[in-house]
């Protein structure tokens, strides 16, 4: 890791003709990002009761809840987001282009605002509140609300990336596939999905990472109830008030998850044919 960054630095200085601004900025930035990460690991290692914290009830409960809710969120995002992304990639009507530009609103919207907005929609005093209450459904402060919040903030990452993936597959390929006797549905699975796979997988990983780290919308809309709505990020915040062990253990766990996703993205590097499309 360090080796590569140093060789990069050399490359940088030779490129900038001996100017020091670029390399200096790079070092400062790397320290800025690297130090806290490193500090987290060092402090966690110093902690005597690190594993007790990790195996404690609160941490495990939060971990299980995070995995279950983000798993459900990702299944829903895949099922709804994939056909939606495909439609956006193929249809160029002006209405869909407007929809397309609104897709990314949740990415720029502060998550806390998203939480408030969801309360205003599905909460007891929300727009749909009386209707849901009549059906006997109380969404806020349930595990369902956690899933809602995660989908709201994470789905755009998947849809945006999958859409770009589908766009990279020229329609002529699908046309040819159909003239070869393959139905549109089978063409999608045998041709479009494999060809768009790198972008679809990237979108999936980014969305999942976003769902796992979701905090603001969750605490607003779902609250912070252990075992029901207290996902890992919420558990970390709660633990910070009482036990640093648990907070550190959970943080290291999330860090490990993030690094795994990052490595996974790098490993699933673009196949050779990507630029032949």
């Amino acid at each position: 890791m360090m080796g590569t960054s140093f060789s990069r630095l050399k490359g940088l200085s030779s490129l900038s003709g001996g100017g020091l601004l670029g390399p200096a900025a790079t070092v400062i930035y790397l320290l800025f990002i690297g130090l806290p990460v490193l500090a987290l690991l060092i402090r966690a290692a110093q902690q005597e009761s690190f594993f007790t914290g990790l195996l404690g009830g609160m941490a495990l409960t939060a971990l299980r809840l995070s995995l279950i809710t983000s798993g459900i969120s990702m299944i829903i995002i895949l099922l709804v987001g994939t056909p939606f992304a495909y439609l956006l990639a193929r249809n160029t009507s002006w209405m869909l282009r407007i929809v397309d530009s609104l897709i990314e609103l949740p990415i720029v919207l502060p998550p806390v605002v998203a939480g408030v907005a969801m309360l205003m929609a599905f909460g007891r005093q929300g727009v749909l509140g009386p209707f849901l209450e009549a059906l006997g459904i109380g969404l806020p402060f349930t595990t369902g609300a956690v899933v809602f919040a995660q989908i709201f903030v994470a789905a755009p990452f998947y849809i945006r990336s999958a859409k770009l993936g589908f766009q990279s597959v020229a329609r002529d390929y699908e046309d040819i596939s159909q003239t070869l006797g393959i139905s549109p549905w089978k063409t999608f699975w045998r041709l479009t999905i494999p060809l768009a796979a790198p972008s679809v997988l990237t979108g999936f990983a980014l969305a999942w990472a976003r769902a796992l780290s979701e905090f603001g919308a969750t605490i607003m809309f779902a609250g912070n109830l252990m075992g029901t709505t207290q996902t890992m990020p919420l558990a970390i915040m709660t633990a910070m008030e009482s036990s640093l062990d648990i907070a550190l253990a959970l943080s290291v766990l999330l860090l490990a998850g993030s690094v795994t996703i990052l490595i996974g993205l790098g490993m699933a590097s673009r196949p050779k044919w990507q630029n032949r499309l």
Partner: protein
Amino acid sequence: MPVAEGWVKCRVGGFSLEVDWHIEEGKVLVLFGPSGAGKTTTLRAIAGLVRPEEGRVELGGRVVYDSSAGVSVPVHGRQVGYLTQQYHLFPHLNVRENIAYGLSQRGQPKARSEVDRLSRMLRLDGLEDRRTWELSGGQQQRVALARALATNPQMLLLDEPFASLDAELRRVLRRELRAMLVESPIPVLLVTHDLEEALALGDSVQVIDGGRIVDQGEPLRILGQPGRGRVARLAGVENLLSMTVESRNPQDGTMVCGGGGMKLEVPLDAAPSRQDDAPDQMENILVGLRSSDIILALEEPKGTSARNRLAGTVASVELRPPGYEVTLDCGIPLKAQVTGAAMSELGIKPEQNLWAVFKASSCFLVQEETPPSRDTGAFP
């Protein structure tokens, strides 16, 4: 037995297309026309990728589209082989997987032997495990053809299939396509704007322009000596001469006409309707003459049967593979095609005095049906 026939009317934006076709098995119908004439739309309508407003498409005795009967078989049920200009080989599959893509029992022994048969037939054996981008242009073209043939198509739709290949490779692949049609006699509709290709591959030709068939028939007649002004320009007739009829000679079947200080003997304007309807208005005519039909001579040839012998000065010499195009000023500029060998033997150079010799029957009358449209200026 007619194997592929039909007609379609399509409307794409403001463009309207109206074509019909009739192709016997193993025969090639060339759809010849400029870009934007509706050639590709025709192919896509037959394949089912474009929905016509009206029409009827019959493939191998099966009606796959009939607007009046409400029949419209989806693309994947039509059994047509469609080859695009860029081939569109599937990049995530190797050559074998590409060829086998449309086979229903991929991986089974029967499918494997079919892929092997096609590979041999199209000289792709040994390349089966290659990635598609490792192939040459000609090989890619063959893989696309093999992939289409594997699904046992009832008709082949070829959209400028040789456009991105060099001239030598084109000739090879044309021969191969011909050989393939002997082995698997399928009706072929081939789209091109290349004259040489149309002449080399077409059993018959339909000239399409602005969404309409403007002429059809035997390629050498239709494109070699086109009778219509628009077709003559599309087919690149090098000499189109505006002349006035001076005298008719019905016994010989010729007439003499003049223009720009030169006199030509050309075939008699035989179409009776024209003479009956408006004998006076036909005095102005357009004479077409292929540059390859002109013989250049250093002196006036004596004792020749060629009726036209014109003296002129060399105005320009241009390289035009496979030879040279010499423009001779005979009062009107006349373009003649000569080989490199003839060039050096005659020592042709600008300002030289030469004789142009050609038969009366090399000249053909071109009917200017409508005022030339704006884009005709691009053609000589």
